[in-house]
């Protein structure tokens, strides 16, 4: 059993090793900070992409137009029926009456005189009532459109899905491409971070290899040699992650005014504010795990005898 007295000594040895060789510690922490910064930045990139995708997807919807003679109650009952069935493909259904449709049109086209004149010529409200549907995923729109065609074909006048199909499909392709690219970039960045950290910690440990030989010679068990090194790795990870988090926050803070000027009032700092704790958690966890595992793996070869 690993006695508590040994545990305290292991921590002390780890701290001593971390503290004594300041240049080596500085070099290791610098490299680890950069890699953890990369991990944090990748997380922000991922969040940014995800939020943008969510925003874009919110803008996509389709409208199912009903025949002019279909009563409001009938359409609303369809709405309630679908809402009660809790269909997983449908996120939100809104009823848009003829009057609301006209109002919206007028609002949108208020600057276009031709449209206003055209409306006056028609005389009566030319807009049918509709159900505006937002899907849980943009890939479901085709299915939803087919569903209305099959189930309510006799009362459905038309839908704007076919008209918007190419636009939706184009947006979907772009979103998928963006998500895949971000995913692969994240994996590549993460692998780079692992390799760089492992190599840095390995070099650090290599410089102490003579000490491990001495420790073994005086009868130190492998665990007693290993644990201070792992403790040292954890300390590297902890200090580096705190530095990386600080750098990331400062970077976002510094970018904020520039982004507001160039990206139409983009509030970068506010945008990421809600994700700061998650980012800090990820970076600290990654730092500690990378430091500990790199040290653990790197020291093993010196303890094989």
């Amino acid at each position, binding site marked *: 059993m690993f*006695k508590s*007295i*040994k545990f305290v*000594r292991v921590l002390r040895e780890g701290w*001593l*090793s971390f503290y*004594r*060789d300041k240049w080596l510690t500085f070099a290791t922490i610098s490299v680890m900070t950069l890699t953890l910064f990369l991990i944090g930045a990748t997380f922000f990139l991922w969040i940014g992409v995800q939020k943008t995708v969510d925003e874009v997807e919110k803008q996509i919807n389709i409208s199912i137009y009903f025949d002019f003679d279909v009563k409001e109650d009938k359409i609303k009952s369809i709405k309630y029926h679908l809402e009660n069935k809790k269909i997983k493909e449908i996120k939100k259904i809104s009823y848009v009456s003829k009057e609301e449709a006209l109002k919206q049109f007028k609002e949108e086209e208020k600057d276009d005189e031709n449209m206003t004149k055209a409306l006056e010529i028609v005389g009566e409200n030319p807009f049918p009532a509709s159900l505006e549907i937002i899907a849980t995923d943009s890939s479901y729109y085709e299915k939803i459109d087919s569903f209305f065609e099959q189930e309510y074909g006799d009362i459905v006048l038309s839908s704007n899905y076919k008209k918007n199909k190419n636009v939706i499909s184009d947006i979907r392709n772009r979103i998928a491409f963006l998500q895949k690219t971000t995913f692969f970039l994240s994996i590549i960045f993460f692998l780079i971070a692992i390799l760089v950290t492992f190599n840095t910690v390995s070099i650090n440990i290599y410089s102490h290899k*003579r*000490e491990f*030989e*001495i*420790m*073994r*010679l*005086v*009868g*130190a*068990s*492998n665990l*007693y040699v290993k644990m201070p090194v792992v403790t040292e790795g954890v300390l590297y990870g902890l200090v580096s992650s705190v530095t990386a988090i600080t750098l990331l926050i400062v970077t976002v803070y510094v970018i904020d005014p520039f982004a507001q000027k160039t990206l139409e009032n983009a509030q970068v700092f506010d945008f990421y504010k809600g994700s700061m704790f998650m980012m800090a958690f990820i970076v600290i966890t990654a730092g500690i795990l990378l430091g500990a595992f790199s040290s653990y793996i790197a020291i093993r070869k010196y303890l094989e*005898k």
Partner: protein
Amino acid sequence: MKLIELRNVGKSYGEEFVILKNINLSIDAGEFVSIVGASGAGKSTLLKMIYADEEPTSGKIFFGERDISTIKKKTLPFYRRNFGTVFQDAKLLSYKTIFENVAYALEVQGAGDEQIKKEVPKLLEIVGLSKQSDKYPNQVSGGEAQRASLARALIHRPRVLIADEPTGNLDPVSTWEMTKLLLKINDLGTTIILATHDEAVVNNIYKRVVVIGNGTILSDNKRGKYSTE
């Protein structure tokens, strides 16, 4: 009482590099054995095999009744605690003071702080390093570093002290001091295996001398002298 026994022990690296062959050697508890021979004769390899830092290619080594090849890797550190080791270079941890270096050998075995505070100064006094206890290895002379290494090797009261060319880097005065210390330790009951090619040291000790050459034992005298001529 037989403490260490080597039976037909050989060590080679591939077929070309045969370091030792058919070594049969028995060392009793409390003995002082000088293993002598020219550089590259295989003295250090022989010592390393005894404290299980190297494995023999052939033959068996026994410590007491135990065949050391049966010791599991995990428990090797416990086996090594039967030995104290001193080398040509003192092998001190540069970031620890002389006191901390000596204490470290006790720490790894789980000794309490009280025991460390009591025993380390005592041993440092025996090897004449009381005034140097707070200094770092780079602040003391070669002879002092070597005596610190000796204190570290002895602090946990090992059954065997293995000294591999401990006087190799020392001036004549320090060499003589070291030799006297080794004899004193042996008088107190610790078995000592000394590897050296220093004629003066071996002849001053005037105890058992095992001469190694061409990978085998050339002679083994109970009270021997050694001459390189």
